[in-house]
């Protein structure tokens, strides 16, 4: 692997908080999200099912079709006739689902029909004229409903509501149980929530009759796979679909589930003579725009009297709702963080994915790892209480030690670097742990309930995509990689085309910083394009903005492509200056001779570009003209998936959150007094961006801990379907996060960088829950579920 000093020729940009290049557009309101594209479109509206579980008896669209301004109507039956079913990935049973409901509806908001009209208002009017006769079926809301012996089946063809059930044991679990002095067991419940990007799903589709092909603009976040999925579903070849992704208003995983709607929009576009635009309403987004599943997690730790945790057994039951493309994923991804920061040598995981009549689920920020770290870090506190040890002490006794790095977990996940004990030490020092404990005791005497909570978490990055198929066999996708095109233009400026989009992460700035330091030029001379056009973008099936892969494979591709350009620049310059390539250095936009003979000579990038693009007869004979290169870079340590030894993800950042809260026992409100994070994501490229990702993801976790909850009635209706009742964190009530960084470079990535972007949402949940439980310890309150709403806290206090 290349060394850092071989990659960067200057250190003017990497590691510095450069303001983001993209923001000049964004602060002026000049971003172009889908709905901003200046195109003459018809408008689509989608009729969502009003019922959670029902058979469709008949659909009458005749009144809607008669409404002036309505151009076309489509129903599920017609969609099914023209498409193939949505593929499952993790599930081991057959379940057939189309982009639109055909014979029955499986969740409130499932598409049943769609309208195209001349404007969006008319399209919405027309929806009200569609008459659907439903025969009500028993709605399955809770996991327990779906597991009843006589429960109706969500997918009859599956023969069960459990679409994935697997048990995998790794390491020395039997010995752990033999050696253990006590077994600590607890069951936790985690609710449905979502990171709710502010821009909802949005698509424009156009049909080109001449060559029977489609152009689709969508705020999709995994375009490679989506192209394959949409084409397979439509029964067309991949040269019949061009996908364009402009600016995206946040994604957080939720836009991985948009592609079935691209199928619907494509079919609609085929019926009319103009592009068709669909902008999802917020209510539809909250109802059917996908959630993180609610889950039951039963966990057992085999523990020695001295606090050493030897073994872990997990039974994870996920309420995956009813989108079979992602069903099961939340269970399998748990292996990425199953043992957290700890040296636990034996694990057993029973993974159960249940389908119900709740809304669809998809990979929301952190994907199952927030739940895994939540239960594990809650358990560490429970162990500490049982043994009369300080919660920090139990963590110190179990941490993977820095000298054990790279550390392989029982299932095969490789933690590449990090100093977990030091991270906790720093956090405890920052918060003033001993003083806070004294304060807690003193305030308690006065009737104020202060609690301190610790959580240590792992933030994995770069999915080894084959993990989806662990229970099934050969994966359709494996490993991870991305592409980039880097070119120098006539004037010696640099243009970069990324293989994947940005949805708020500042990728264009980060990539520009790296390229500028690789070529020894200023940031202004580097322009980076993160908007995607499948005709030109250098993407793969893995491409997309997900799993914190950017700092690993996306930048890897940028670096390799830039290196190719740089090598060629040096070759041309050596030829021009008649010196040996090894005598050349890149400085301030020039190639200069260094120590050897001919010292003091230089050619500018512009002069080099002149030869490459114009005076091509002056080039060395064996050199192609041009200065544009493409490179693909793959994560080098992805193992082939296997049940006995596999790594779900390939980089592992870590952090410790220490939270001090006061709980008002009269109202059940949780108030933050301190929130300290010590965070290690390896080498940082832009600390300003890293800090933003860390704060933002932590606030997602605060939302999940305290207020966000998709509440369903017993009939399967979503009760929290607007931002009035689905409560997001606002400017008020949040702590000021105090952040410190450690830097343990990743030996597996070119720049030593690791995952950034999900960490706070993973580690925060248990820190807050541990703090609340600590605050309420005089009342024997036990926190085993989220969110900790005032109502739930008051109920717990009354028991």
């Amino acid at each position, binding site marked *: 692997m290349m060394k850092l000093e071989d990659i960067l020729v200057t250190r003017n940009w990497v590691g510095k908080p450069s303001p983001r290049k993209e923001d000049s557009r964004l602060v*002026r*309101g000049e971003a172009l999200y889908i709905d901003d594209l200046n195109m003459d479109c018809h408008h689509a509206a989608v009729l969502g099912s009003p019922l959670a579980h029902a058979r469709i008896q008949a659909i009458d669209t005749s009144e809607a079709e008669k409404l002036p301004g309505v151009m076309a109507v489509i129903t599920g039956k017609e969609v099914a006739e023209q498409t193939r079913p949505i593929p499952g990935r993790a599930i081991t049973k057959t379940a057939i689902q189309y982009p639109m409901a055909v014979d029955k509806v499986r969740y409130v908001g499932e598409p049943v029909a769609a309208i195209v009209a001349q404007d969006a208002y008319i399209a919405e009017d027309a929806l009200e004229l569609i008459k659907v006769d439903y025969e009500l079926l028993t709605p399955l809301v809770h996991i327990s409903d779906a597991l009843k012996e006589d429960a109706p089946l969500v997918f009859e063809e599956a023969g069960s509501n459990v679409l994935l059930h697997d048990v995998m044991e790794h390491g020395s679990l039997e010995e752990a149980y033999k050696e253990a002095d006590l077994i600590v067991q607890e069951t936790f419940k985690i609710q449905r929530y979502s990171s709710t990007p*502010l*821009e909802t799903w949005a698509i424009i589709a156009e049909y080109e009759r001449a060559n029977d092909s489609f152009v689709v603009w969508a705020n999709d976040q995994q375009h490679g796979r989506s192209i394959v999925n949409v084409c397979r579903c439509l029964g067309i070849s991949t040269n019949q679909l061009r996908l364009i992704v402009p600016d995206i208003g946040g994604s957080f995983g939720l836009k991985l589930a948009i592609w079935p709607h691209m199928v619907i929009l494509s079919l609609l576009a085929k019926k009319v003579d103009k592009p068709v635009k669909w902008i999802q309403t917020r209510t539809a987004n909250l109802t059917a725009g996908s959630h993180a599943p609610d889950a039951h997690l039963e966990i057992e730790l085999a523990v020695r009297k001295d606090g050493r945790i030897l073994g872990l057994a997990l039974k994870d039951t996920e309420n995956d709702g009813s989108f079979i493309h992602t069903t099961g994923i939340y269970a399998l991804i748990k292996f990425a963080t199953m043992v957290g920061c700890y040296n636990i040598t034996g694990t057993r995981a029973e993974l159960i994915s249940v389908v119900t009549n709740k809304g669809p689920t998809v990979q929301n920020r952190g994907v199952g790892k927030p739940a895994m770290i939540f239960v594990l870090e809650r358990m560490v506190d429970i162990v500490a209480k049982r043994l009369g040890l300080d919660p920090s002490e139990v963590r110190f006794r179990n941490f993977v030690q820095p000298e054990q790095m790279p550390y392989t977990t029982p299932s095969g996940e490789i933690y590449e670097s990090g100093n977990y004990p030091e991270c906790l030490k720093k956090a405890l020092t920052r918060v003033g742990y001993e003083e806070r404990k004294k304060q807690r005791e003193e305030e308690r005497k006065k009737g104020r309930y202060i609690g301190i909570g610790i959580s240590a978490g792992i933030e994995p990055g770069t999915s080894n995509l084959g993990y989806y198929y662990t229970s099934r066999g050969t994966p359709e996708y494996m490993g991870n990689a991305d592409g980039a095109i880097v070119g120098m233009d006539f004037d010696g400026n640099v243009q970069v085309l990324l293989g994947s989009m940005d949805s708020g992460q500042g990728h264009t700035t980060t990539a520009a910083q790296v390229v500028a330091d690789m070529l020894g030029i200023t940031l202004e001379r580097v322009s980076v394009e993160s908007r995607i056009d499948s005709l030109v973008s250098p993407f793969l099936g893995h491409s997309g903005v997900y799993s914190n892969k950017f700092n690993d494979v996306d930048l890897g591709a940028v670096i390799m492509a830039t290196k190719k350009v740089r090598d060629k620049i040096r070759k041309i310059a050596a030829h021009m200056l008649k010196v040996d390539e090894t005598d050349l250095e890149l400085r301030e936009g020039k190639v200069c001779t260094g120590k050897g003979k001919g010292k003091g000579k230089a050619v500018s990038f512009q002069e080099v570009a002149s030869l490459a693009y114009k005076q091509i007869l002056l080039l060395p004979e064996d050199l192609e003209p041009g200065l544009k290169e493409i490179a693909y870079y793959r994560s080098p340590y992805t193992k082939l998936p296997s049940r006995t030894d596999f790594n779900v993800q390939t980089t592992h950042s870590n952090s410790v959150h220490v939270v001090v809260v006061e709980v008002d026992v009269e109202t059940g409100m949780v108030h933050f007094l301190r929130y300290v994070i010590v965070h290690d994501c390896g080498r940082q490229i832009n600390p300003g961006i890293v800090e933003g990702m860390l704060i933002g993801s932590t606030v997602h976790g605060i939302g999940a801990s305290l207020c966000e909850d998709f509440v369903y009635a017993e009939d399967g209706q979503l009760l929290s379907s607007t931002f009035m009742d689905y409560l997001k964190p*606002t400017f008020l009530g949040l702590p000021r996060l105090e952040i410190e960084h450690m830097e343990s470079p990743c030996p597996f990535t070119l720049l030593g960088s690791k995952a950034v972007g999900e960490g706070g949402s993973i580690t925060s949940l248990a820190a807050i829950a541990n703090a609340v439980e600590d605050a309420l310890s005089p009342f024997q309150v036990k926190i085993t579920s989220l969110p900790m709403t005032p109502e739930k806290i008051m109920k717990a206090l009354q028991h």
Partner: protein
Amino acid sequence: MHEIQLRINGKDFQHDVEARLLLVHYIREKARLTGTHVGCDTGHCGACTVICQGRAIKSCMMLAVGADGFEITTIEGLAAEDLHPVQEAFRERFAVQCGYCTPGMIMTSYFLLQGNPEPDEEEIRRALVGNLCMCTGYQQIVDAVKYAAERIRRVERKDP
């Protein structure tokens, strides 16, 4: 249909519109100013915030016909060439991630600073409570607004 006249960012607009057309849709589709965004259907998110008759309003909560004769400033009208100090502060302080809430945030912040040139953290947080950001966790936005206030004061005092 109803004929309405509006002045947006100093430019006059005149259209026949349906009574039910929301002001935000008028701004986006008739005036073609797409910096004002729609993030919810219910007036909770603030992405559509504009300055209307001198006050920050959520333009999804007003009908276009209700704004007949009004003067409106949108994000596009905040600064002519150079960035407004609030825009500059958002850029310098990493207060932007996906950018979707940003125009609304900036318009509300601009309105706050007009009435209160020296807000403390609590005042900033209270003033912006009607604007949701899903990316940043708000902390860097608060810092940007504080920084913008300082910059504006510095300019007014003609400090270097």
